[in-house]
C-alpha cells in the first residue's frame, strides 16, 4: 500500500519536471500574484501597526472646541475647567497645523513646554541631535522627521524656511532629527516650541488648537471622558476614535482594500485561466490514459494534489519573499503611490513593512486553495468520465 503512494508521489514530481510549460505558467502566475498580494498586505499591516504606535503616542484624550459644529481654536481658560475633573492627571495645550515647503506639506506641532519632560505621549527617540527643551521657547529651534531631513537634505545645525498661512517666510533651526523613517507619526512631523507655533499660525492671544488630557493611570479614560459631557462646546476624542480614524485612512476607505481585492481577483482569475488553457487540455488526455491503466479516481486526485501543493507552496513562498524585498528594500516601485495616495505622505516615505503569521497564512490560503480547486476539480471531472471519451475529446 505504501509502495503505491511512493509511486504516485514519484509520478507527481515527474509531472512537474516533464510538463515544463505547465509548471512554468503556474510558477510565473503564482510569483506575480503572490508578490503583489504580499507587497500590499505586508505594507498594509506595517501601516496599521504604525497607526497603533501613533495612537499610543497620542494623549489619552484630546479636547477640541466646537463652534457651529466646526472645530475652532480653544481658549486656554478651559485648561483649569478640565483639570478640575476627577481622574484627570494633567492637561497640556497644543498648537498644530500644516506648513508648506516647496510642493510638500508637513505637519507642524508646538508642544506645551510643561509637557516636554512628560514621560507619556511624547516620542523622543532621535537619530541625531537633541529633543526640545523648555529653554527653546521662541528660539526657532525645531526637531524634524527623518523623511523631511531626507527630502530637504538637511541635518542638525541647518536652517530651513517654512511658509506660513500668511505666506511669511520663517526661518527655523534644526536641533534634532527623529529616528524612524517608517513612522507615520514622526516621518513628516516638525516639532517646535509652543510660542513659535502660535506665532507661526498667528494664533490669537490665549488660544490654542486643542488640549491634550492625560488621565490618571488608575482611571478608565472613557469614564473620565464621559464626565466632560457637562462642559459645553467641546468635543472629546479618545484613542479608540483616533485609531478608528487611522484604520479608516489606511484600510477600507483608503482604497487599500479595493487594491488588495482587485489584485486577489486578478490573481485567482490568472490561476484559473492558466489552469484551464494550459493544464486542462494536456491533463485530460493524461487522466483518461491513467484511468485506463487502473489509476483510481483517488489516485489521480492524489497525484494532482501533490503536484499543486508542491508547486503552490514553493511559488507562494518565493513570491512572498520577493514581495517582502520589493516593499522593504525597494519601497514597492509602482505600488507605493497606490499605498500612500490616501495618506498624505510623499512617495519618498519608506513603507513600514510588517509580516505577521496571519498574513503569511492568508496569502497561502488565497493562492494555494484556488490552485488546488482549479487542478483537483477538473482532474476529478476527467477521472469520472469514461476514459475512452476523455482521451478522445482531448485528442480532438
Amino acid at each position, binding site marked *: *500500500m*505504501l*509502495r*503505491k503512494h511512493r*509511486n*504516485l508521489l*514519484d*509520478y507527481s514530481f*515527474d509531472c512537474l519536471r*516533464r*510538463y515544463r510549460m505547465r509548471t512554468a505558467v503556474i510558477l510565473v502566475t503564482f510569483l506575480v500574484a503572490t508578490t503583489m498580494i504580499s507587497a500590499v498586505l505586508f505594507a498594509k499591516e506595517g501601516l496599521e501597526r504604525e497607526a497603533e504606535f501613533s495612537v499610543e503616542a497620542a494623549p489619552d484624550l484630546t479636547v477640541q472646541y466646537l463652534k457651529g459644529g466646526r472645530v475652532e481654536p480653544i481658549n486656554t481658560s478651559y485648561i483649569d475647567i478640565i483639570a478640575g475633573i476627577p481622574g484627570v492627571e494633567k492637561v497640556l495645550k497644543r498648537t498644530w497645523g500644516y506648513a508648506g515647503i516647496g510642493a510638500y506639506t508637513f505637519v507642524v506641532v508646538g508642544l506645551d513646554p510643561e509637557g516636554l519632560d512628560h514621560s507619556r505621549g511624547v516620542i523622543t527617540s532621535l537619530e541625531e541631535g537633541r529633543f526640545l527643551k523648555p529653554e527653546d521657547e521662541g528660539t526657532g529651534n525645531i526637531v524634524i522627521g527623518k523623511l523631511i531631513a531626507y527630502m530637504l537634505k538637511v541635518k542638525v545645525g541647518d536652517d530651513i524656511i517654512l511658509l506660513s498661512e500668511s505666506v511669511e517666510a520663517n526661518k527655523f533651526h534644526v536641533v534634532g532629527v527623529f529616528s524612524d523613517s517608517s513612522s507615520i507619526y514622526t516621518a513628516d512631523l516638525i516639532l517646535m516650541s509652543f510660542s513659535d507655533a502660535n506665532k507661526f499660525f498667528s494664533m490669537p492671544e490665549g488660544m490654542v488648537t486643542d488640549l491634550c488630557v492625560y488621565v490618571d493611570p488608575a482611571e478608565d479614560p472613557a469614564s473620565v471622558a464621559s464626565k466632560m459631557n457637562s462642559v459645553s462646546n467641546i468635543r472629546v476624542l479618545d484613542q479608540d476614535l483616533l485609531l478608528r480614524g487611522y484604520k479608516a485612512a489606511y484600510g477600507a476607505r483608503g482604497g487599500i482594500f479595493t487594491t488588495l481585492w482587485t489584485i486577489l481577483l486578478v490573481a485567482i482569475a490568472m490561476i484559473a485561466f492558466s489552469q484551464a488553457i494550459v493544464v486542462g487540455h494536456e491533463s485530460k*488526455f*493524461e487522466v*483518461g*490514459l*491513467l*484511468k*485506463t*491503466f*487502473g*489509476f*483510481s*479516481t483517488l*489516485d489521480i486526485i492524489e497525484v494532482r494534489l501533490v503536484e499543486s501543493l508542491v508547486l503552490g507552496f514553493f511559488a507562494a513562498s518565493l513570491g512572498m519573499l520577493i514581495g517582502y524585498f520589493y516593499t522593504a528594500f525597494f519601497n514597492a516601485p509602482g505600488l507605493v503611490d497606490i499605498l500612500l495616495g490616501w495618506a498624505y505622505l510623499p512617495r519618498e516615505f519608506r513603507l513600514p513593512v510588517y509580516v505577521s503569521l496571519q498574513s503569511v497564512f492568508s496569502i497561502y490560503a488565497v493562492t494555494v486553495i484556488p490552485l488546488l480547486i482549479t487542478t483537483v476539480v477538473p482532474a476529478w471531472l476527467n477521472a*469520472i468520465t*469514461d*476514459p*475512452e*471519451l476523455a*482521451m478522445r475529446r482531448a*485528442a480532438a
Partner: protein
Amino acid sequence: MIEVKNLTKIFNRGKFNETAALVDVSLKVRDRSIVALTGPSGCGKTTLLSMMGLILTPTSGEILYDGESVLRASDYWRTQFRRQNFGFIFQHINLLPQYTTLENVLLPLYSSDLAPGEYEGKAREWFSRLGIADRADHLVEQLSGGEQQRAAFVRALIKDPMYIFADEPTVFVDEETSRLIYGIFSSLRDSGKTIVLSTHDPELMKLADEVFRFSKGRLC
C-alpha cells in the same frame, strides 16, 4: 471467458448528431484464444473494444467476465479490474509525448504496489525483441509511428495481463515487425492469454481463432 450480450452504444442520444455506433451485439470470447474484429471504418470496432475493456460505458446490454456481470460494479471496482487484468494497445497509440519510451512503458505500474524500477530489465528485453532498444531513452515524440506502436505494444504487456485489447496493432509497422507481432500474439495465446483485436490485416485474421465481421454497428 468474455460474454457480450445485446450490447448497444448510442452516442449523443436524443441530439441531432445521434450515432448508433454499436447495435445489439452479442458474442463470446473463449479463454486462451485470439479473436479478431473486422469491418469497414466506422463500423464500431473501437467502440466494442473500449466497452469490453471497461473504458466506455454501454448504452445497454451486458458484459460478463467468467460469468460475472461487470457493468453494474462500481467505478473503483472496474478500475481495479482493469489494473489487474487488462493490457491496452490503442488505435491512436496514446503515449505521453513528454516522457521517454521506457517511462511510458512503466507508467501502468505506478498505480500499484509494484516497484516500476524492477520492471526496467523486462521492458528493455521487449525493446530488443521488437528492435527499438536504442529508442528506450528517447522522448516518445521523437519516435516514428511504427516505433511508437511497438512501444505501446510493450506497455500493454509489461504487467503480463490476462486480457489484451489491441486496436489495429499492426497498422503502423512494417511487414517484418508485423510477423514478429504475429509470433508474439500466438505465443501469448499459448501461455494462456486472451487477445481481442481489431484489424484489416488478413494475416492477423488468419491467426485468429474466430473473426467477427461488423457493418454499421451490427454483426454480420
